[in-house]
């Protein structure tokens, strides 16, 4: 189904979760003799048959290296490969598909901007703002870039409810601010920062904005033009696609000014021993043989979620989150971390007197897969002065009964620790 059809579909159309589940072979397996209850999609989502088959089909029917051969298979593979670029552009409403650069994932996309943009265009004393909500992948690349050019990293603080402290953000913005790197949704808490206000504020200060869309893209429609950001990064594996592929979207005029950051095949126009010239965007940033089959199958993942409708998915997940929060709040001794209402599909919590790591081990024996730990977001944990949380994250295939299974497994944990 194409994007236009998907949009035409009413978002309150009945979402048949059982039919969706039948598309995901892994969901029918058992773990420790119990039905799998997979509540860790924020770390990586499971794959529908459509994606698995698409990847297999590449190897069985149309595999060859891309952009290199005149032979039939190479051209067929190249066409499919480029079709994913076009599909990503339509999925995030990018004005031009050449603004979509394939990467290994969100981490590599952010590193690309940190090294090719920030390391070149920022000078000593320029400031990069990152929020305390960020995943380590949207922190460390900026630190590495700053070490090269003497730029300064400043933290946008959060409030007790997990939301951005907007007054502090306004104070931090100034003539030295050159880059704001902010998540569209916290992977640790599920909190959604108010980008519709934050991005214009950054632009008023003449800063560029990179949005880490790794979580957000799986839970609601993304429109980079409406959002108004300058760069947008995401990973395929979180949106029910293969691992090893993701993308950076960037405004053409910025990408065009940016030097290559990795050298190799694919990215060059002409190579001499001492000097080479480079291709235009996006190929300039795509050195070496890419994850061909994975890129091709990523299109099937985007088609899959679009077929269900991002609006319908968001509604289904909101219902799950709502149920989870209500049931958790009804339990004694549960503390939910990050209580701002601007939140989707993720709930992070503590159980009084029981360490998250112990909870994770015990609920696992009930077949319930949750993530316990710092979720690659140690600054968030530091803010709350905790070492870890339990995080349940919901995907389009989860059910209310699975939320109940989580609660039952938590009650069992309580019994063991009673």
């Amino acid at each position: 189904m194409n994007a236009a059809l998907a949009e035409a579909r009413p978002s309150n159309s009945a979402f048949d979760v059982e039919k969706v589940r039948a598309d995901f072979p892994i969901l029918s397996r058992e773990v420790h003799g119990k039905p799998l209850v997979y509540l860790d999609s924020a770390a990586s989502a499971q794959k529908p048959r459509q994606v698995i088959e698409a990847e297999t089909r590449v190897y069985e029917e149309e595999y060859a290296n891309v952009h290199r051969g005149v032979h039939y298979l190479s051209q067929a593979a190249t066409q499919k490969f480029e079709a994913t670029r076009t599909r990503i552009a339509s999925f995030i409403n990018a004005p031009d598909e050449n603004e979509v650069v394939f990467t290994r994932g969100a981490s590599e996309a952010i590193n690309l901007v940190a090294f090719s943009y920030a390391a070149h265009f920022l000078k000593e004393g320029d400031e990069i703002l990152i929020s305390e909500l960020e995943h380590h992948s949207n922190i460390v690349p900026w630190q590495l870039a700053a070490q090269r050019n003497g730029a300064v990293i400043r933290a946008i603080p959060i409030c007790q409810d997990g939301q951005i402290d907007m007054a502090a953000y306004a104070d931090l913005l100034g003539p030295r601010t050159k880059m704001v790197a902010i998540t569209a949704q916290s992977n640790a808490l599920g909190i959604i920062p108010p980008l519709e206000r934050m991005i214009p504020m950054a632009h008023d200060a003449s800063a560029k904005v990179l949005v880490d869309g790794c979580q957000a893209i799986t839970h609601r429609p993304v429109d980079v033009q409406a959002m108004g950001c300058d760069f947008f990064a995401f990973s395929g594996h979180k949106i029910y696609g293969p691992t090893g592929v993701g993308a950076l979207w960037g405004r053409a005029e910025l990408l065009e000014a940016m030097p290559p950051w990795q050298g190799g095949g694919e990215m060059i126009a002409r190579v001499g021993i001492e000097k080479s010239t480079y291709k235009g965007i996006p190929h300039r940033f795509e050195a070496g043989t890419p994850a061909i089959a994975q890129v091709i199958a990523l299109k099937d993942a985007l088609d899959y979620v679009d077929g269900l409708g991002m609006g319908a998915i968001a509604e289904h997940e909101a219902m799950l989150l709502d149920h989870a929060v209500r049931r958790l709040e009804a339990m004694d001794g549960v503390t939910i971390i990050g209580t701002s209402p601007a939140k989707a599909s993720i709930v992070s919590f503590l159980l009084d007197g029981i360490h998250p790591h112990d909870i994770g081990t015990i609920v696992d024996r009930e077949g319930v897969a949750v993530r316990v730990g710092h979720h690659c977001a140690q600054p968030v944990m530091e803010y709350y002065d905790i070492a870890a949380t339990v995080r349940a994250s919901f995907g389009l295939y989860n059910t209310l009964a699975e939320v109940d299974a989580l609660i039952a497994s938590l009650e069992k944990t309580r019994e063991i620790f009673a």
Partner: protein
Amino acid sequence: MDDLRDLYQEVILDHGKNPRNFRHPEDANRHAEGDNPLCGDRLTIYLKIGHNGLVEDVAFEGRGCAISMASASMMTEIIAGKTEEAARALFHRFHDFVTGKEEIEGADDEDLEKLIVLAGVKQFPMRVKCATLAWHTMTAAMDGENVVTTE
């Protein structure tokens, strides 16, 4: 559930909830911080080692899962009064035991026997680091390395 009951035995839950020697001795002459980045557990081991190499006092502070807290708590009870060398040797055997390299049947060693309650971690490979964190940190403190991580 049986594996779980083995892992979370009464003794472990008790040490986890009421850790022994959970304090910062003023006269400690060695200390090290242990960090388990996987789950964010962090503890500090304090040692007072006498001129004769005896562990005169051992205590800890920090936070972590029931397994790491219980293991630290039990360790402080067991190694107090031992020589550094004996404490290291005990860790060596304990480590082999929880990683399944050595089977321990009953009472060839009274200290090791106390630690048998931690045997449940063998069924939970991800949790072995929790059971050994305090011990790694203790040896780091003895070696004068002040920070140790399980990664």
